[in-house]
């Protein structure tokens, strides 16, 4: 399976083009590639734009296993991050029973993705902390809530707010990259208030839940500001953490071009 020369790659007329942004094959890109591949006629060409470096290494073996042909890659623009990868849809893989089997398999995998369950294990430690174990990670959290200036570990309340902020910061960076927006900087502040912290401390009857969470995104870009704002709105709407919290608490988000 010989790669084409840059000249030959540039001469290709892809039947289908899509932008995988910063996704890697482990975080859903494989599903998206397969979905797009099914739209390419047998022997036709799929172009995948990507800014994730690991994709270049993952595509050739994936093509071999799925009966397609990896044709090679070109830089999106010289000196800019990102590559254009070209894949030719295998004729055998695109006809008859093979195609029907791939359609079925893709539907099954999409179903599995929908039913995926995230699992963590948490063990109380000796002292005021616990350790969370998850996949290849473990991390420690301190008390459920803390007012101390300094602590050994962040509190659970802070971890929740931090998870929200980081979901949106990373999600927004990926969304901008998919949209071709150049962001010089993305910074998010998160503030949260509880209905009644005294209820958590057992000093008072009442509601210890969050009453308000405020997220503020500062984005630094010289690109189209309204496009950047729309990308932010999409990021908030598509974030599992933000969407869940928004159901339970007043979640205020603002966006500023800094």
């Amino acid at each position, binding site marked *: 399976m010989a790669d084409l020369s840059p000249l030959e790659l540039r001469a290709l007329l892809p039947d289908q083009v899509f932008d995988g942004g910063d996704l890697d094959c482990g975080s859903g890109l494989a599903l998206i590639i397969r979905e797009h591949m099914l739209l390419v006629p047998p022997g036709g060409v799929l172009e995948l734009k990507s800014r994730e470096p690991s994709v270049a290494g993952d595509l050739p073996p994936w093509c071999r296993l799925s009966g397609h042909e990896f044709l090679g890659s070109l830089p999106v623009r010289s000196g800019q991050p990102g590559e254009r990868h070209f894949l030719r849809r295998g004729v055998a893989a695109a006809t008859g029973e093979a195609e029907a089997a791939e359609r079925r398999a893709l539907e099954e995998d999409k179903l599995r993705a929908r039913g995926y369950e995230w699992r963590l294990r948490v063990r109380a430690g000796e002292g005021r902390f616990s350790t969370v174990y998850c996949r290849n990670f473990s991390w420690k959290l301190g008390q459920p809530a803390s007012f101390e*200036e300094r602590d050994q570990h962040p509190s659970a309340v802070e971890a929740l707010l931090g998870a929200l902020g980081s979901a949106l910061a990373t999600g927004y960076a990926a969304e901008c990259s998919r949209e071709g927006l150049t962001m*010089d*900087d993305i*910074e998010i*502040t998160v503030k949260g208030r509880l209905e009644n912290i005294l209820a958590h401390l057992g000093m008072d009857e009442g509601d210890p839940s969050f009453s308000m969470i405020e997220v503020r995104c*500062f984005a*630094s870009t*010289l690109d189209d500001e309204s496009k950047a704002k729309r990308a932010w709105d999409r990021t908030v709407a598509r974030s599992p953490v933000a969407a869940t919290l928004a159901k339970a608490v007043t979640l205020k988000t603002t966006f500023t071009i*800094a």
Partner: protein
Amino acid sequence: MTIFTTTQVGSWPRSRRMLRALRDRRLGQVTRAAFDRVADDEVRRTVRIQEEAGLDVLVDGEHRRDNFYSFVTDKLEGARLMSLAEMLDEMEDKSGFEEMLTTLDVPASAIRNPTCVGRLSRREPLAMDDFRFVKSLTDRPVKITLPGPYLLTRSMWVSAYTKKAYASQREMGEGVVRILREELQDLAGAGCEFVQFDEPVLTEVVLSGECGRRTFM
């Protein structure tokens, strides 16, 4: 000269083109010559507007500067332009730092500080090129602005980075004063009519009596 001498204080708003050039320079994506072409145009425009408005002492608008004091990192050995975002990990008092950022209502990346990371010396004059260029555009007297010694001594000292180069803030401060004195002498020698030293933080010290706090702008 008129009865009331008029001049202008503060840097000029940067055009979108200038903002892009400043950003590209920060990221090392533009040559000095290409950057200067953009900045020279902006300074020409700025001088023309001041002349048309009838001002007596002209400024160049400080278009080339990252900000009015952090720009010294372009000119000094031993100084590095660092955004507060880069310094977040090294800040001892994180909640105080957060308090300050919240008050200023800005992202940490928007504030860039000239941090002293080595022995300070002039790699090139701080403002001599600016002076020569603006002087070539006008016959009127020209004002050059420089950050004051207190402002620089206060902002450039960040213990985590500076202690390797200087034993104390006072010792670094003496280096700052030497550099500013050299610059002032050079500017005067070249015929610069006015030099303005900016000391905005000094007012805070005078009014609040508080010297130990850290200030970023």
